[in-house]
């Protein structure tokens, strides 16, 4: 009897392990020409786990506070064994995680995987994407360098433009009227306690929903399989799909390692609140389409403030996008065409405005 079998039996005696993992053994994944899109959610989860691990390691040396943050990150980058690698992996994994989360979201839109009964899976996924962007916004400030300081200043200023609650929200985020050490402490708190807690909870909900409803099959494939059930193909989740997912994780790890070793993330200069803002202040790439749009809206539109209009439009779009499954009534109706059109428009707009933002001076 191998050690593994003995451990398995030991667990089974106490927790009925075999019963517990029975659903996993029975779980299957549909196999069709678009099955590869199923890997994106798993890769995003893997990158989140990398974030948790590297984040904990960074916490061993990082000190929040305007007088210590920059120096502690500098220490991590130059003196701590493999500190540069951990920080760079943390940075690149964050960016790749948001990229794969966006790709996952659009794949769900175009394959209509959000449709009944998976509305809440979509809503929980969207909330996770918002949280991931919150992670990015709060984490960007933590090294307390010039670029991060002024980008946070601009970002929180935009929050201040939200009608009615904007100013209070800005004060809450900044911990005062200006971006100071108090803002850094708050952002650190959000980044390492509030957001991870909420995200872990939502990931569990998201995974439970995916587990409960199973993998969605694209409508065209579903129709074909209904007409000819013999064509329907399934793959066992464990171990067949999981091993393939593991391969995807390894590839992601390779990309992550290569990016971190070849392009370790630079530290820049320490933030100086009294220095003038340097030219070319830009947010992280995933906020660029919003930033560029707000920049291009005229200061006054009719009698309204242009920036306020922009914020209201983005806010309304985010709410509508969150409620997307509820506009799809199934079948081949108008709602479906409208959602596909909106998805194409959103993707094109995000890419175009991001590229424009980076190319514009």
């Amino acid at each position: 009897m191998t050690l593994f079998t003995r451990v398995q039996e030991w667990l089974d005696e106490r927790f009925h392990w075999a019963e517990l993992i029975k659903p996993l053994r029975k779980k299957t994944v549909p196999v069709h020409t678009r099955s590869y899109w199923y890997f994106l959610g798993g890769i995003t989860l893997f990158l989140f786990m990398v974030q948790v691990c590297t984040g904990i390691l960074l916490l061993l040396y990082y000190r929040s506070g305007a007088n210590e943050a920059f120096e502690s990150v500098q220490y991590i980058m130059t003196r701590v064994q493999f500190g540069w690698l951990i920080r760079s992996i943390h940075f690149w994994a964050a960016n790749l995680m948001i990229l794969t989360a966006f790709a996952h979201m659009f794949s769900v839109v175009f394959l209509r995987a959000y449709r009944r009964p998976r509305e809440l899976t979509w809503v929980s996924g969207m909330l996770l994407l918002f949280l991931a962007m919150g992670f990015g916004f709060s984490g960007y400030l933590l090294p307390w360098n010039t670029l991060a300081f002024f980008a946070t200043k601009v970002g929180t200023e935009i929050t201040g433009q939200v009608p009615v609650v904007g100013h209070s929200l800005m004060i809450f985020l900044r911990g005062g009227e200006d971006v100071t050490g108090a803002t850094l402490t708050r952002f650190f708190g959000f980044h390492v306690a509030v957001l991870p807690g909420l995200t872990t909870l939502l990931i569990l909900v998201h995974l439970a929903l995916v587990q409960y409803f199973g993998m969605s099959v694209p409508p065209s494939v579903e129709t074909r399989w209904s007409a000819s059930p013999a064509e329907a193909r399934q793959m066992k989740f464990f171990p067949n799909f999981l091993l393939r997912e593991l391969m995807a994780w390894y590839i992601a790890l390779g990309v992550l390692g290569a990016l971190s070793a070849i392009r370790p993330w630079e530290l820049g200069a320490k933030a100086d609140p009294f220095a003038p803002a340097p030219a070319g202040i830009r947010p992280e790439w995933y906020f660029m389409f919003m930033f560029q749009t707000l920049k291009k809206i005229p200061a006054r539109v009719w009698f309204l403030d242009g920036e306020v209009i922009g914020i209201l439009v983005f806010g309304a779009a985010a709410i509508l996008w969150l409620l997307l499954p509820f506009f799809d009534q199934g079948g081949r109706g108008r709602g479906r065409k409208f959602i596909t059109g909106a998805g194409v428009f959103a993707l094109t707009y995000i890419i175009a405005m991001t590229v424009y933002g980076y190319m514009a001076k």
Partner: protein
Amino acid sequence: MDTWRNNGLRFALALPLFMVLCSVVRAQTQNTCLDCHSALDPPLQVTEERFAQDIHSQKGLTCASCHGGDSTSADLDAMSKAAGFRGKIERKQIPELCGRCHSDAAFMRQYNPSLRTDQLAQYKTSVHGRRLAQGDYEVAVCIDCHGVHDLRPASDTRSKVNPLNIAETCSRCHSNADYMKGYNIPTDQFAKYATSVHHEAMTVRGDRSAPTCTTCHGNHGAAPPGVGAVQNVCSTCHAFQAQMYEKSSHKDAFQAASLPGCVVCHSNHGIQYPTDAKLGTGQEAVCVQCHSPGDACDQARAKMLSDLTSLDEAIKNADKVLGIAEASGMEVSQARLEQDQARDELTKARVTIHSFQTDLVEQDIQAGLKITAMTHAEGKAALVERNRRRMGLGFSLGAILIVLVGLRLYIRQIEAKAR
């Protein structure tokens, strides 16, 4: 009813009286000279718009304050001798006229307590003032530099005596070869100054503390600095260089030969950014113009040049290595900061050159070389670390590839078994 009637009568009588009073008050504050002079042709033309720009006008002075007469009266009698009218002020009278107020500390205190009141006294000591006293009315008087009728304070960038404009103001006469004929002085000062490092600092970098004509020659007491005083003038800004020069053997030697200190090597109006080539033997070289090749001083020159060059090259080499490391994503900001210290040592050595003592220069050079040796080593270490990382990446990617191949084969195996 009677009360109403009485009040109405009183109002009817009071109104014309009030209007007369108003017209009198208006006439007293009015500068009626401009009514005519606005319409005249130059040089008698002074428009209201132009005079409103004048600091004197803004402080409440009128034409009569300088020209006499009665500026409140529209009659021609206002320009009579009886009314104290002086007419056009003769050039020789201008400094004294301006001095009536500007040399009166008590009077000037009402308007600008911090303004000096020794301009006239200084002017009398200047070349301009002395020549004017001798009857040369072509020389500059107050209005030639400050303007007239639209005179602005020196702090105003539109003023002719604002630091940004002084050189051009002086050049209006001093660069005019015809005008300067007979004075026997060069007229290329402004042309040379326009190519100088001082002019660049003033106009390109906007450094208003950079030297312009008046910084070295004085303003109201303008005169060329004497041969022995040149280093005193330059030392107002270049203090360390002057201290070194004061203790050097050149000071006495230059004085004995009536050579004008700093100007001997750096020139005066057309001062260029000094390069180490001044210590060389090429076109820019200055030492070899006096010293013979191979003598003790020439050997000292060669030693100082070689020292400066070695530190300059060491800094560039370290910069290059650090640049490569930085471009590869290595963190070398500390070494970059140390490089700035090495650059400071090089600057210090270039200042110490003015002592013309090789041992002092070498001290600064050695301090700089010590730093560059360290930063160069830090850069090299960063490159070694970069290569180590890339090698580590290669091994990791190899290991990942092996695992991927293994996984793929394993999947194929279990799926073949299942079939």
